[in-house]
C-alpha cells in the first residue's frame, strides 16, 4: 500500500539531473530547450535539479570517453534509489560517429545500467518528454 502511494508520487514528481558525458553540446542545448517555458515540463512535475542526490531521472548525453567513464559511475552511485537512467542522443546509445575515435571507451550501457534509449542527433524536446514519461513506467 505504502509502496503504491510512493510509486504514484514518483511518477508525478520526476526530478531530472543532467550528466553531460563529453557530448558535443548539441544534445545539451536541446535538454536546456526542454526545460524552457515553451515546453513547460513542470506540468508533469519534472524539474531540473543541480545535484544527483536529489534526482530520480539521470539524463546522459555523449559517448562517455575514458576520462569521463569513472566519473559517470560515481554520479550513478550517488543517485538515491529508486531511479532511472535515460540515454539522450545517438552518441549515448551507440557512440554514433565517434565509434572509431581514439578516446572512445565502451558503450554507456556497459558502464552504467540504462533504462530508456533515445536516439537522434539531437533528439527533439518533445521526444525527450516522451522518453522521460516512458521511463517513469519503470516505477511500479
Amino acid at each position, binding site marked *: 500500500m*505504502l509502496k503504491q*502511494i*510512493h510509486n504514484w*508520487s*514518483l511518477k*508525478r*514528481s520526476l526530478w531530472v539531473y543532467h550528466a553531460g558525458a563529453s557530448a558535443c553540446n548539441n544534445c545539451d542545448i536541446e535538454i536546456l530547450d526542454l526545460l524552457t*517555458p*515553451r515546453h*513547460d515540463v*513542470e*506540468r508533469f*512535475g519534472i524539474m*531540473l*535539479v*543541480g*545535484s544527483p*542526490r*536529489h534526482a*530520480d531521472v539521470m539524463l546522459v548525453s555523449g559517448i562517455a570517453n575514458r576520462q569521463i567513464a569513472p566519473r559517470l559511475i560515481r554520479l550513478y552511485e*550517488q543517485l*538515491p*534509489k*529508486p531511479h532511472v537512467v535515460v540515454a539522450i542522443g545517438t552518441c549515448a546509445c551507440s557512440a554514433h560517429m565517434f565509434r572509431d575515435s581514439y578516446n572512445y571507451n565502451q558503450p554507456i550501457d556497459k558502464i552504467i545500467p540504462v533504462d530508456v534509449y533515445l536516439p537522434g542527433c539531437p533528439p527533439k524536446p518533445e521526444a525527450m518528454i516522451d522518453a522521460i514519461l516512458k521511463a517513469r513506467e519503470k516505477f511500479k
Partner: protein
Amino acid sequence: MANLFVIFISGFFLAAIVGLLASWLDRKISARLQFRVGPPWYQPLIDIIKLLGKETLLPQGATRWIFLGAPLIGLAGAIVTSLLLLAVGQSSGFIGDLIVVLYFLSLPSLAMIIGGSASRNPLSALGSSREMKLILAYELPFILATFALVAKAGTLVLGDLVAWQAANSWFILKLSGVISFVVSLLVIQAKAGLAPFDIAEAEQEIAAGPLLEYSGPPLAVFKLTKAMLLFVLPFFLVTLYLGGADNWWPLKYLFVLTLMVLIKNTNPRLRSDQALRFFWGPVTLLAIIGFLLAVLGC
C-alpha cells in the same frame, strides 16, 4: 498535557497544509507569469511524499548526527513559531513573546548553515557562508522594523500588540507602519530564501548550496520547512501590521504572499555583497526612519 499535544499536532498540520498550498501558489503564479500552465495543486505534497520514500545517502566523512539532525532543528523552529502565532490568533489572554518568535524565526536559517557545514562539500560550505552573511545583513533592520510597533504600543506581548491594533487602527495605516512593513517584507523575502535573496541556494551557481548533499527524508524535511516558512512569515507580518488573525486573515495572508511572489518573479538574484550593502544601507536607513517616526507618534 493531552490538550497541548492536540494543539501541537493541529498547528503543525495547519501550517504544513497552508504552507504546501502556498508553495504551489508560488509555483503556479510564477508559471502563469511565464505564460505556461504550471504544476497541479497537489504537486508540493507529492514532492514531499516522494522524497520521504527515497534512499538517504550519507556523504563520506560527513558528521552523521549533525547532518541528519539539522533538518529537524529547522522544522522544530518553523512548527513552534507557527504554534505561537496561531495561539495568539486563537485566545486573547495568551502571552506570546515577540522576542521568542524573532529567535525561533532564525532557527530554519541556522539549520541550513549547520546542515551545509556538516555535509563536507565545498559548495555546501559556500552556501552556508552565504546564508550566514544574509543573516548578518537582515537581522538588524528586521528587529528595528518589528520594534517600531513595540515602541508605539509599549508592550512586547504579541496578544497585546494585536489588541492595541484592534483598539486603535492597523499598524500599516500609519506612516511608520507603512515604512516598517516594506522593510519587513524585504526581510522575510530573504528569510524564506526567495529571489532576489536566494543567494544561499542559488541553483545555477552552487547547485543547491547547503541542500546539495541531502537526499530522501532529510531533504523532504528541509522542503517542508521551506513550505511552512511560506505560511509562518507572511502570517507574522499579518499579526504585526495587518491587525492579526481575525475572520479575514486568509485574505490578508494571501495579500502578503502575493506580494512576495511578485517580488520573486520580477527581480534577478543579487550577489552576497550586493545583498549586504542593500540591507545595511537603504533598508536599515528606512527601518531607522520608521522606528523614529513611531517613537514620535506618526
